[in-house]
């Protein structure tokens, strides 16, 4: 008996009948309703203990208009057998609160703070009551994701400083950096507490770029959401648009044609390659080894032009559409040959870098993230894999055509968790991406590129998971009764990976921060929606 087949009875037994409407959907999703405040925590403990399933997403939803409640949805995933548990809790609209599970799982702490800021649903007994997303100049009663939120006439800064944790002691001083930086990067405030050059604490304050992305999805037709999803994080066009499209396709029960699924693999891997290669150059640049940077950017340019041949856009925009893909492979393009030439150059650059003893000295041992810390943060993507956590949505929850590849590709996992490990993971992944594209290219079936998206059932939840180049991206969607988007919740891996950076940097020296930060390279925009 597999875990999933015994899950239903175990769940009913464990929650003593408090789990209602327990139903299996789409073969591997168990949906249920939970009632009492403490049930979510009991559920999380039970799932971790008995099933190795972990919380991956919390979604708040304002359904007061037609259902007279707020909803909190908890999504758990089990990677070994590829199943999900989706639990919904309804909250009374007057003074809604949830029982915090912050002390049980750190990402829950952040989801709860986010929900508190955007919905005004307070987590009870939460150890950290500071705002996360909320800006100091939002009015007290302004909760932007509530359906009845009215945009204030003008925002006034209340002038209070953010309550950073204070670090004291002899010889400790603070270095505040940002939110405006010297490079062309997004805003983020980094506050170092240092003794000499050694960092003893780093506080990261992000959320200076709140754009209301999730709110912007509301009221859009499914197809209109794609262009928004493409722009959630500029470097993750395919990752986000694919997760979004998969979610609405799941919701509509639409089967994507085989050729489109193979093309989706190619597009997603192209995105991975160009980001990994460009970032390798940026990492070398941060050690002052400009030569590698110059050449990686040359390769990046070749890849971007390849992208343009594929979809007419250098960042692959327009590549994914609901029900399929936007463009077929250009006839004249020998994609594997192009990529082989690029990866050959890349391997040469990598070889030169790894032969450079000064560069290696900078990478090795810098910014160590232990496996325990990574696990505690629910870290995703190459951050997790560099710290010994073997996760990859492409294998654990196969999507597109990843389940149909002829032979399994290698998922690199390193144990050290340092900058070197994160760098090498990305080098090896770029190489594997070429292998994946070659497989997809040669095995691609003929057939249509798109199919008609089915009708979206009203007020049903669905979600899509994609292994973007940074890690697992989740889009959770719900449509209203006019087939428009009612609620879209996005989780970029940056949301869980950013806080881990603080821990990776401890006991490192200040001038090594840019290198550690670059080895994480998390998205500001994807984190602050």
């Amino acid at each position, binding site marked *: 008996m597999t875990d999933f087949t015994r899950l239903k009875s175990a769940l009913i037994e464990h929650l003593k009948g408090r789990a209602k409407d327990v139903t299996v959907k789409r073969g591997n999703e168990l949906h249920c309703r939970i009632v009492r405040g403490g049930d979510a925590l009991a559920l999380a403990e039970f799932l971790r203990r008995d099933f190795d399933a972990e919380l991956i997403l919390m979604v708040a939803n304002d359904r007061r208009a037609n259902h007279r409640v707020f909803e909190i949805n908890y999504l758990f995933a089990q990677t070994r057998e590829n199943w999900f548990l989706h639990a919904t809790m309804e909250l009374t609209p007057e003074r809604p609160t949830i029982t915090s599970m912050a002390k049980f799982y750190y990402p829950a702490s952040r989801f709860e703070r986010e929900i508190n800021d955007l919905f005004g649903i307070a987590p009870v007994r939460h150890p950290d009551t500071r705002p996360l997303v909320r800006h100091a100049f939002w009015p007290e009663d302004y909760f932007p994701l509530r359906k009845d939120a009215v945009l204030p006439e003008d925002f006034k800064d209340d002038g209070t400083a953010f309550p950073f944790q204070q670090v004291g002691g002899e010889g400790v001083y603070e270095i505040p950096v940002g939110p405006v930086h010297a490079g062309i990067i997004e805003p983020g405030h980094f506050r170092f507490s240092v003794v000499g050059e050694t960092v003893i604490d780093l506080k990261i304050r992000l959320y200076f770029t709140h754009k209301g992305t999730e709110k912007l999805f509301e009221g859009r037709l499914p197809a209109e959401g794609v262009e928004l999803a493409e722009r959630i994080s500029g470097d993750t066009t395919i990752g986000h648009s694919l997760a979004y499209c998969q979610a609405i396709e799941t919701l509509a029960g639409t089967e994507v044609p085989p050729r489109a699924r193979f093309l989706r693999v190619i597009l997603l891997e192209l995105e991975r390659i160009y980001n990994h290669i460009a970032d390798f150059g940026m990492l070398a640049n*941060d050690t*002052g*080894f*400009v030569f590698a940077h110059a050449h990686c950017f040359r390769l990046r340019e070749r890849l971007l032009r390849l992208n343009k041949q594929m979809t007419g856009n250098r960042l692959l925009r327009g590549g994914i559409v609901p029900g399929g893909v936007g463009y077929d492979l250009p006839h004249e393009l020998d994609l594997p040959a192009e990529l082989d030439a690029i990866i050959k150059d890349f391997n040469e650059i990598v070889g030169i870098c790894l032969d*450079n003893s000064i560069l290696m000295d900078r990478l090795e041992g810098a910014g160590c993230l232990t496996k325990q810390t990574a696990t505690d943060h629910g870290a995703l993507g190459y951050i997790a894999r560099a710290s010994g956590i073997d996760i990859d949505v492409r294998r654990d929850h196969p999507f597109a055509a990843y389940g149909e590849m002829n032979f399994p590709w290698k998922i690199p996992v390193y144990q050290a968790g340092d900058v070197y490990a994160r760098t090498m993971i990305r080098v090896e992944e770029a190489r594997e991406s070429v292998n994946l594209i070659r497989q997809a290219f040669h095995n691609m079936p003929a057939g249509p590129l798109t199919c008609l998206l089915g009708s979206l059932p009203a007020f049903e939840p669905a979600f899509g998971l994609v292994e973007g180049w940074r890690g697992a991206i989740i889009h959770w969607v719900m449509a209203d009764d006019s087939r428009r988007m009612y609620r879209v919740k996005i989780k970029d891996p940056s949301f869980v990976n950013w806080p881990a950076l603080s821990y990776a940097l401890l006991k490192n020296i200040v001038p090594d921060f840019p290198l550690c930060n670059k080895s994480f390279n998390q998205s500001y925009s994807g984190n602050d929606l």
Partner: protein
Amino acid sequence: MTGYLLEIGQALLALLLAPGLTGFIRWVKARLQGRRGAPPWQPYYDLRKLFGKDVVVSKNASWLFRFAPYMIFASTLAVTMIVPLVAAPLPFDAVGDLLAVVYLLLLGTFFLALAGLDPGTPFGGMGASREMTIAAIAEPTIALAIFGLAVGAGSTNLGRIVAQTLANPGGVINPGHLLGFSALFIVMLAETGRMPVDNPSTHLELTMIHEAMILEYSGRYLALIEWAAALKLLVFFSLLSNLFLPWGVATALTPGALGVAVIALALKLAALAVTVAVLETRLAKLRLFRVPELLAVSFVLALLSVTSSFLLR
């Protein structure tokens, strides 16, 4: 009288050449990295632009902040009058010797560090602290490396050292000479903020040393500091080339000899510039705490240079 005119001429020549030297290194680096790069004369445009701009000064800055750029510029310019760029000996040789050069350079560094601390920004303080750590090891090494030559020449007077070497060219290939050159070369990289000690082209504030101290500067103040930094590089290049390989330096003040001297200087500077550019392309930046190790190596080299000069005298 001609001697003093020559002093002024030499300082003017240094002022004129310095930005081009920096620009030339950048250009060669760009070429080596496969980029087109800005033309070598770009720093002249930059200086003109900066001199034409308004100055923004922090409210927290004191008089020191405004005074420091002039001090840094003047002290570096003064060095160019003591260092034999085109001719030796010079009338100012009597005023300042090797020790004067070292301490004039240190004076500039000292004021630069003070100016970094003055506005109270974290980056300035960080840069100043790092610069002082490096200067504390680098400055004695400069003196020591040249002492190796001074022992041979029997004088700390730079003009005398040059004249002595020219008169006795066979001495150049002794081990003290070579060790001293290596020591001074490493110190030059550290003192002028080049790789692998400092990255002159980085935008990452947290890794900066020299650039961190001058982050608050703008307009003509920044122009003066940039110009002084370029001058300092030229001074170090001249010390390296003219003390250790003095050929071309005019010993007679004839137009012909001076012309040859200027061309020789330009060639030597260009050769060193290419060397530095190649090094900067080949090297990555050292982890900050490895820098003292590198400087310790150069100090030991300098010490060996002096020792062997004594033993082989």
